[in-house]
């Protein structure tokens, strides 16, 4: 089975003069997993949409299953056996698993009346395709994401799928769920289905891919078997630059700004935690999900109730009982879920940056000067190279990495002593990740005290000069300056 299931040659697509796709070639073979990779905005999703018939290509040929395709509609693509599992999974959260499984094929076959027995049979058939077992009466919205995903895959299989396109399926999954998903993907592959896996996490791509296709700025810069590719080249193709790990070297560590002494939280998510943080250093806090790392950060920002112990800021004991208080004490916190907690997506970039420093940007009568807000934002845009042509555009127009830069700008605009970053590069492209890290290094060397909370161990190892490891609410390991090593952390983390 080595002939191409899907063959795309010289695909072009322009939107208003911009080449979204510029003579892209792409092959997917039956019984193989092809990873389509690229940073945000490289044209991945446009390419997928030309396959599914959502967009019409300007130029180029598409051959599917030996047949040349002309213009196709999404419905025709589905009938041919192209199935897309979108990131939002296209499920109905209010309906049962049974209905979610059966409804698409009922519509496609033009049924008008509901037949319970037939629905049940269809649903069971769908589950049997991958041997998945789940309560058919369960309400879809109450399942976890991994289960929803499997249901969506089962549903796609009902249509005699020959090609399944998975659009960044691992984004919201835990490591264990990813493994389960990969098992299913391999099972489908071995049954002769062609899989197109869209992703950008290096480790995952190398784990699952048989073939890889990398895109950058609408061009297809690499196509070939995964075994011909090493990690460094992969990142080079993805970003267009050679990224060397750039470890953080503290240049001027100053006095202790924060001392946490025997801190225990009311809900016992943190117990007897003590540590110090000095000016000009980056302290890493790592641990598995539920180890108390996030709660510790929230406590420092006034969002968790403290049972005992103390927080000493520049030699003075402080009670941080609200984010307002924390801000007054010049502590900034960048949350993990920045789309939900850190940003007003439908507000201009400039206004988001100004949000925490409105006092500085308004006059005596508390009237805000929009001109100064925009001017301020321009400065941050330059400094962080935020990719936008106008700071008055909404944050929702930015990619993940650039949105993260906006959150950082917001806090840095307030003139901080301590900056707490929770998962600073979750869901951020490799290139932007490097930018953000370099920026944090500069900030620390300018005298800021930084805490990075992350479960991305390479990130912690490269960027922190000291690391504390948490487990079940307690500190189980400390690593100083030169001894921060990934293997050692792995040993004690779980």
């Amino acid at each position, binding site marked *: 089975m080595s002939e191409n299931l899907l063959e795309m040659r010289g695909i072009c697509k322009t939107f208003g003069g911009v080449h979204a796709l510029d003579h892209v070639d792409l092959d997917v073979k039956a019984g193989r997993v092809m990873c389509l990779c690229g940073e945000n905005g490289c044209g991945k999703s446009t390419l997928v949409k030309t396959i599914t018939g959502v967009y019409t290509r300007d130029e180029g040929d598409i051959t599917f299953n030996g047949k040349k395709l002309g213009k196709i509609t999404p419905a025709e693509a589905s009938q041919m056996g192209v199935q897309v599992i979108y990131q939002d999974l296209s499920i109905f959260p209010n309906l049962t698993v049974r209905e979610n499984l059966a409804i*698409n094929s009922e519509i496609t076959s033009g049924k008008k009346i509901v037949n319970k027995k037939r629905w049940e049979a269809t649903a069971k058939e769908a589950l049997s395709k991958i041997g998945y077992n789940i309560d058919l009466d369960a309400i879809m919205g109450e399942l976890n994401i991994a289960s929803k995903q499997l249901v969506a895959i089962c549903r796609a299989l009902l249509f005699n799928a020959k090609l399944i396109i998975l659009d960044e399926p691992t984004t919201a999954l835990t490591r264990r769920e990813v493994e389960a998903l990969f098992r299913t993907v391999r099972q489908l592959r071995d049954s002769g289905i062609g899989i197109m896996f869209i992703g950008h996490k290096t480790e995952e791509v190398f784990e699952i891919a048989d073939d890889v296709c990398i895109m950058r700025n609408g061009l297809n810069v690499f196509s070939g078997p995964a075994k011909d590719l090493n990690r460094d080249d992969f990142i080079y193709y993805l970003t267009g630059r050679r990224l060397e790990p750039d470890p953080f070297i503290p240049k001027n560590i100053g006095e202790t700004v924060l001392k946490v002494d025997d801190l225990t939280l009311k809900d016992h998510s943190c117990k007897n935690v003590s540590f110090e943080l000095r000016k000009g250093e980056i302290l890493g806090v790592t641990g598995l999900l539920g180890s108390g790392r996030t709660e510790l950060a929230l406590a420092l920002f006034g969002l968790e109730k403290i049972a005992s112990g103390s927080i000493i800021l520049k030699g003075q004991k402080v009670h941080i009982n609200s984010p307002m208080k924390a801000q007054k004490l010049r502590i900034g916190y960048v949350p993990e879920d920045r789309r939900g907690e850190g940003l007003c997506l439908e507000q201009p970039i400039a206004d988001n940056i100004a949000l925490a420093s409105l006092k500085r940007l308004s006059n005596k009568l508390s009237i805000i000067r929009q001109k100064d807000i925009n001017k301020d934002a321009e400065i941050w845009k330059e400094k962080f190279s935020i990719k936008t042509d106008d700071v008055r555009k909404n944050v929702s127009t930015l990619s993940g990495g650039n949105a993260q830069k906006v959150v950082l700008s917001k806090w840095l605009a307030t003139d901080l002593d301590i900056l707490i970053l929770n998962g600073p590069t979750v869901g951020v492209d490799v290139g932007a990740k490097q930018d953000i890290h370099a920026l944090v290094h500069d900030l620390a060397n300018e005298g800021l005290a930084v805490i990075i909370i992350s479960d991305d161990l390479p990130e912690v190892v490269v960027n922190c000069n000291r690391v504390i490891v948490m487990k079940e609410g307690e500190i189980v390991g400390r690593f100083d300056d030169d001894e921060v090593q990934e293997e050692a952390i792995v040993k004690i983390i779980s």
Partner: protein
Amino acid sequence: MSKAKRLTRRTEFYIFIVLVALCIVIHIVSGGNLLVPDKIFTILRAMTVDGIFALCSLVVMISGGFDLSFPAIAAFSYSLSTTICLNAGLCQDNPVIGFIISMAIGTVLGMFNGWIISNFKLNTMLVTLGTQTMFIGLSMGIFGMKEITSKLPAGFKALGTAKITSYTTTIGSREVTSDLSVCIIFLIIFIILASFLLRKTMFGRALYAIGGSEVSAERAGYNVKRTKFILYTVVGTVCGFAGMLRVCLTSQSVPKALVGKEMTIIPAVILGGASIFGGEGTVFGTMCAIGIITIVSNSMIVLGIPTAWQNLFNGIIILVGITVSAVQAKRRNG
């Protein structure tokens, strides 16, 4: 999950218990004056039109929309239809022509709603707020405040007073006869139709699907635009019917009579388990909720509570309804 456990998680289950409990409590407090045939006849009669309106609101809410314009559609339809029948001397024997005219007008107004909503993808609550005001304005402009009461075509009155059975009691020395109106049959027909539509047809499942996720419904192959257009059109037709039925039952055609009706019907539908976010709701729950508000408003007099307190009760229903709805949605979305 066992069947019993699943049952207890449904709003309909609790609303039914509330309905039963309320009946028993009021029956006892009023000295055995609720669960008697004549009271039941009165309540069923009062429920008829509201019940049909509630079913209309229910199907719209399941699809994730709101229709604030149904009272305005009904009022305009029956006002125009009554005027036409009166001037042309129609419906002296039977009211069928009047119903057909009213339903035709309702259909046209419903199509207008459906056209705007499906073509421009606008917020349904705002669209129907606009069309509602427009339809009210239209009927005020054409009919003024003219109320038609005594001159009503005989056919309408005949239907309004037709009975299935009657029941006679003696209060003191007087004999009082209460009738079970024929019109309740229409409500029963609509209940059966709505249940069938929602549970057994792909159109009904499409409403649930669209209410759950419009994008997913589109991707699954539903023609969302057409479905919505048909939905609002049919709702218009049914409202035309319900409005005419109201004229027959009350023996009057008052253009402004239904203004504000949506503010009691929609909360009742929400109380009955329909979600304000769409995708949830059943005919059974809706009818239980309509039963509750009708019984309470009818029993206030019996219990010696001034009817002026009615709004307080309606307000409580709104709050309870939306709170339950929001809590359930929260549980669902994690």
